[in-house]
């Protein structure tokens, strides 16, 4: 029983991590209909941002959210404006461009750091809370709390604020939204900025948990894709729940089979979901084709 409880806890905490990482990807996909292959690299940049704030300015990694999140927001806006906006109706070129960004950022960081692994220390992060037989690491608990807050916050934002309503209008029908006076390009820039900022926040919160390496983004992007496909493309709650499902699956398969095979197990789930519900468990049917439809 204690083992079972521990596995469930580990799975849920891991699910929080995956959910947080996937949310930015899903926001960008849901609104702009761009699959951002470089999303994991944005998380990686967030982690290095936290490292730099810690090493150079002596800030607690958690405080560096104040620097990293706005920084990545601006970077995201720049990327959307100068790289992705010109490719708006070119899904194939978007794959090339975002993959090019992935390679560029990853190897840029590799070149600068020379491949040395860094780690960030935070006094808060290493605290462990015991509840009965279950040990909870505070750093992971913070991630879990954040993902819940972010999901609720985004839900509130798109439902009850004017900019949020504009985002929903653009998602539903770009042309009609434009006719209503919404600046679609501006909404896209803000959305990509927000997606990048979410990635940055994920990076900051994960920096005390993982050893930093330039390639770490690749681990996250696959998890994020699995989560997004499972939960539903473009559905925020889908990413939230999909994250927990993938986290639990990883925890259980790691315990009962072999942790080395977790990617293979994700992939099996991935394929199974694709066969049964290509739009994801919570997605709208046909969402997997939406990116290819003409919209302007």
């Amino acid at each position, binding site marked *: 029983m204690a083992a079972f409880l521990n596995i469930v806890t580990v799975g849920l905490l891991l699910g929080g991590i995956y959910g947080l990482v996937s949310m930015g990807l899903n926001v960008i996909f849901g609104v702009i209909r761009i699959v951002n292959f470089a999303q994991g690299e944005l998380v990686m940049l967030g982690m290095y941002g936290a490292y730099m704030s810690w090493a150079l300015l002596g800030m607690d990694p958690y405080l560096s959210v104040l620097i990293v999140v706005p920084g990545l927001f601006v970077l995201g806006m720049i990327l959307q404006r100068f790289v992705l906006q010109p490719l708006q*109706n*070119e899904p194939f070129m978007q794959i*090339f461009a975002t993959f090019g960004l992935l*390679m560029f950022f990853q190897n*840029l960081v590799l070149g600068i750091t020379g491949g040395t692994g860094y780690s960030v220390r935070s006094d808060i992060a290493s605290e462990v809370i015991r509840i009965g037989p279950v040990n909870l690491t505070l750093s992971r608990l913070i991630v879990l709390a954040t993902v819940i807050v972010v999901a609720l916050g985004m839900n509130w934002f798109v439902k009850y604020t004017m900019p949020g309503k504009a985002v929903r209008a653009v998602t539903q029908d770009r042309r009609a939204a434009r006719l209503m006076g919404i600046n679609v390009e501006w909404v896209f820039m803000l959305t990509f900025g927000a997606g990048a900022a979410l990635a940055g926040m994920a990076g900051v919160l994960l920096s005390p948990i993982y050893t930093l390496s330039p390639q770490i983004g690749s681990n996250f992007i*696959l998890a994020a894709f699995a989560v997004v496909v499972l939960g539903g493309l473009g559905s925020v709650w889908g990413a939230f729940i999909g994250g927990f499902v993938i986290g639990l699956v990883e925890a259980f398969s790691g315990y009962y089979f072999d942790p080395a095979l977790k990617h*293979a197990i994700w992939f099996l789930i991935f394929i199974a979901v*694709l066969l049964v519900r*290509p739009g994801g468990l919570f997605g709208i049917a046909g969402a997997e084709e939406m990116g290819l439809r003409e919209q302007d």
Partner: protein
Amino acid sequence: MSKIEATELGGRRTTGKGDRHITSLATELLRIAGLAGLFAIALVVLRDDPFLLNILAYTCLFGGLATSWNIIGGFGGQFSLGHGVFFAAGAYTTANLYFHFGISPWLTLIPAVVVASAVALAVSWPTFRLKGPFFAIATLALNEVAFVLANYFDGLTGGPRGMMLPFRAGFENMVFTSKLPYAIIMIGFLLVTLVTAAIVLRSRLGYYLQAVRLDEDAARSVGIGVLRVKLMGMAVSAGLTGVGGSLFAMYIRYVDPPTLLSIQDVGVRFLLISLIGGVGTLYGPLAGALLIVPLEFQLRATLGSALPGGNLMVLGALLVIFALFMRKGLVGTVSDIWDRYGRRRDE
């Protein structure tokens, strides 16, 4: 994607003056024979320079691999990021048969084709339900899974330590002391892929693949079995990629998961070379390889120690730049200029 843009991808676009002339298969085969002549001259010139022969061998190998990728990726519009899996399938098939059973690598090319195509069919059947970026995601995931499995099943692959293939010089073992025979083999591979691609392009399969790329629903509505066509294109493409993997394994005589299944060094390389040369054109992938492979050797030589990953950084930047400004690649851009010049001459 708008329809006009989509037709432009293939390089044969409809102008106000009707379709551009479509060359016959015989013309293409003649052109490929001309290329073979050029490569023969290159071999004679470079025969005593192992460094340049090595670059030539890699250029032809990756040119051939990109040409193979282009059959499903370019003609058929299915942007696979998972061709590294078929590459590795070929490489591991040859490595195992040669290492454990002493079978001549030449003979292992046949099982390599079969294994690579079979793997491709098995994994493509479910993933072909997805379109565009989602197909790319699924194939990317597939590559990662193959990486994990290759590390895990060390009986078949040697695991993370890899397999060192014994050096037993001799034609029957496809092991040579000089670089020249390897360069000839790689040129041969490139020519085989070009001829295959030309035949596919001018066959029913090729036209079906292009119809699927331009509009899948329209293709289905005129009675094309879309899934069947995609699977056939994928099988041809993966089979050739498997041969490339076998030849690569015998060239470097070492196989391990990072060499065969690195997404940035292998899987994306085919697609990148094709994009830079011209996706969906017959000679685009070769043009891309002629530019990219020597460039990368140069970058590695100059940046290698000072800036690790510098070569991949440049390639990443090139991907973005070509996607933004030269979508039709080198071949497409050149043929556009040709068209403009030709049109002016008509008037």
